């Protein structure tokens, strides 16, 4: 059973296509919508909640049709039985924490003692036991966040929707909360849709990620697949930690192929490309910054994919260090661990050798339409 099914959902604002024929299915777990601001991820989430009415398409939750413009079905948000965590938490300032969480239970006219029990259990779960008589304004950002989460799960819905829930917290708290959030959602055992523009957050939290841009789904995969095999240059650049260059496949044999890269002074690279369908033609080459080796001395003679370049600069980031190396016309970033040997910028006229492992490269064939 698919918990969520989206078919051909389209939404146009004046002249902007916010959602362009979006379709996907999702079973269980945590699914993130990842993309830059304005890519349509929030519109998609709000359409699933019923807060936004698409111009076309259908949405069903747990095999029950919620929105179907063609079929004339539009279940109002209050009957969809979902939870929703808003970006600004949207806690009602005139209600105590208890009343905020009890709101949906009260509307269903449950007995008072049952409401009390469920609300308190839920507040305990999110670590806010004993704070039920406070008002939202008396809580810190992180605590408000937990109240919003408690409010969304108190009815035990099958699906909760979270719209950039951590974006209002400071960086350190954000990192703590995302781990805790994941733990909580898994503990409650409900499925979640999670909107974020932060790829690290999406990777940490979700089982699967949908990367969106300009109202379209670019890739729908597990975080690991997205990172190691981006299927679109936009995905690769959005996820980051990589250098993107244009190349040309000149030979492909048995899961390996050779690409020529004009920007590297027409140097050729050998790479593993088990999924590559083409044997020649233009493609985008994604080089992972973290999977590179850099040295002042040349590598052993039988090492493949060795390029020569000059050091441009070095940025110290604590545990990691970024080295900027000029290769041909292109600047390549090499991220190395603190324990790797330091490469100085000004040693021996800045000349360095760069070794690109086969696994550090992934290829994206250029689409015919583009």
């Amino acid at each position, binding site marked *: 059973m698919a918990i969520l099914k989206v078919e051909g959902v389209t939404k146009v604002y004046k002249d902007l296509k916010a959602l362009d024929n979006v379709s996907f299915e999702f079973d269980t777990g945590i699914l993130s919508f990842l993309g830059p601001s304005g890519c349509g991820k929030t519109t998609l989430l709000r359409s699933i*909640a*019923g*807060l936004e*009415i*698409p*111009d*076309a398409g259908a949405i069903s939750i747990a095999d029950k049709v919620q929105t179907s*413009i*063609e079929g*004339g*079905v*539009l279940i*109002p*948000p*209050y*009957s*969809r*039985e*979902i*939870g*929703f965590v*808003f*970006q*600004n938490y*949207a*806690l*009602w*300032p*005139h209600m105590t924490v208890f009343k905020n969480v009890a*709101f*949906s239970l009260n*509307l*269903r006219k449950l007995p008072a003692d049952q409401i009390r029990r469920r609300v308190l259990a839920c507040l305990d779960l999110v670590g806010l036991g004993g704070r039920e008589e406070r008002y939202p304004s008396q809580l810190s950002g992180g605590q408000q966040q937990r109240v919003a989460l408690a*409010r*969304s799960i108190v*009815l035990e819905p099958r699906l909760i*929707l979270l719209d950039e829930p951590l974006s209002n917290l400071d960086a350190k708290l954000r990192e703590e909360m995302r781990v805790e959030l994941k733990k909580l959602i898994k503990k409650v055992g409900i499925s979640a849709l999670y909107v974020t523009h932060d790829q690290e957050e999406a990777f940490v939290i979700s089982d699967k990620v949908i990367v969106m841009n300009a109202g379209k789904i670019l890739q729908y995969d597990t975080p690991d697949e997205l990172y190691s095999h981006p299927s679109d240059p936009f995905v690769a650049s959005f996820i980051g930690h990589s250098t993107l260059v244009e190349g040309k496949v000149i030979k492909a044999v048995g899961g390996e192929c050779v690409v020529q890269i004009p920007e590297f002074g027409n140097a050729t690279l050998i790479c593993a490309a088990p999924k590559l369908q083409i044997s020649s033609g233009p493609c985008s080459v994604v080089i992972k910054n973290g999977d590179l080796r850099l040295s002042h001395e040349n590598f052993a003679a039988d090492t493949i994919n060795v390029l020569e370049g000059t050091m441009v600069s070095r940025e110290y980031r604590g545990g990691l260090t970024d080295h900027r190396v000029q290769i041909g016309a292109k600047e390549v970033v090499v991220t190395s661990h603190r324990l790797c040997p330091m490469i100085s910028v000004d040693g021996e006229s800045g000349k360095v050798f760069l070794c690109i492992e086969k696994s550090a490269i992934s290829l994206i064939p250029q689409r015919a339409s583009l």
Partner: protein
Amino acid sequence: MTWKANRLALRQGSLFPLCASTVAGIVIITPVLVIMWRSFTSGKMGFTVDLNVTNYLRVFADKDIWPMLNNSLVYAGGSALLGTGLGGLLAWIVARTNTPGKGLVELMPLYPLLMPPIMKNIAWILLLAPKSGILNGMLEQFLGITYPVFNAFSMAGMIWTFGIACVPLGYLFLLPVFLSFDPSLEESAYIAGSRPVHTMLKITFPLALPAFISAFVLNFLRALRSFETPVLQGTPGNIKVFVSRVYDSMALEFNTGLATAYSVVLVILSIITLYFYVRATRFSERYATITGKGYRVRVIDIGPWKYVTFAAVCLYFLAGIAIPFVVLIVVSIIPYFDYETFMTFPSHMGLNNYRTVLRHASFLNGLRNSVLLSVVIAVVTVFVGIVMAFTIHRTRAVGTKIFEFIGTLPLAFPPLVLSVGLVIIFVGTPLYNSLWALGLGLFVAYFPYAFRNASGAIVNIHKELDEAAWVHGARWRHVFFKVTLPILKPAVGGALFYIFIEAIRNVDVAVLLTAPGLEYGPVTLFEYFRVGQWAEAAAGGVIYLIILIVAVSVAKFAFKMKFSL
């Protein structure tokens, strides 16, 4: 949205708010349409009517039309300039100078709430009337000047009375500008070599200009719509403006066609003014000297000039607040009003006038009606205003933007004009001369204030708060009563209070809708004054003053309400 999506959206609740707003919209727009229609027809009402422009021909053939236009503009422009200029000066004195005794001015925002507009006119007429006026009498007695120097029934007298009433608005518009002015704007001028006076003239005042223009235009509009000053001071001195002409056409001739034609001219003037007001506020947004940061403004030591500004503050306090107050109270407790009796105060003091007034059925009836109606009207307008704002900003019904226009429309219509429309609608029906017609008139006149207030407040409530209720199982009525309304509570309190205060002292809506047996307190005072029962009018006015003082105190201390007009 495509039409298919649209139809689905409409089916989702929002029916009740939409219906309620539509009914309110019809109630509001009807008098307006009736005025328009009536201005283009002639013939006795209730009989056959012809569609023609006779009324306009008569209006524009009136040889007084140009002097009248001139009078209206001079009166409105003069009082707006006097009020805004003085208000701005006082704001600057309070915010930026080390003038002693500037606390006297800080009371000012409360003052317009306490003093009904008609009482200001009465007080100034008592002071400045050419024959019996207190000031002219003093000049004669002490200086031997027999020629009446002051004349309340002149253009200058009108501008003075209404101009003084315009000061608080000018003050309130300009005070925040001077208070939250970014000091670095002035400091950079100092560093560039500009001296304080030069900086003030070249930097401070020009930056306050947009707020000044906004306040000026708003005061201009208020003067254009004002009723008491033109009728009580202009008409006796034969200075006609549009409002008094509309009133005369209704009250003396009962010529509704002519009254509506004059009204339409007045409405066009109002709309032009409103247009300038909208332009002026946009202009001031572009200037945006006020940011969210909390600045500590610098108080400038103006040296010996502080005695000049101190004199200005004292003068305003005396002329604007203290003297009219004192005169009213004294006149209310002397046996009757003339100069000699006034000067014998306090020897003939007594509460006779109060006893007389409180025995008049007309006064008691009017007092009861005005208290009752203003409470009801405040509650109804505020509630309907919130429903309409909710319909516009929170439901999915399409085309609700039209309510934005309808809800604001009465602002362009002087209250007297609206009541002309209601008279035309109700004359000949059982509702004519009933509390219902009176209540409806007040509802239409004050609705825009309730609506604009609710609209502004709803826009400021994050939409997510509603949506959070919505996705967590709340239907429209739950969202409205459990989330929107409770969060709006502070704004609702302010609007309720403001409309109550305005309605309880209203003259210009009620004056055409009252009748013997159906009195409205302030109108009763207006009639007393017109027939020469000045001391009774003063006593009645003081009773209203006491009611308002109690209401303001309750609001201030029991509900901790803050006042800013």
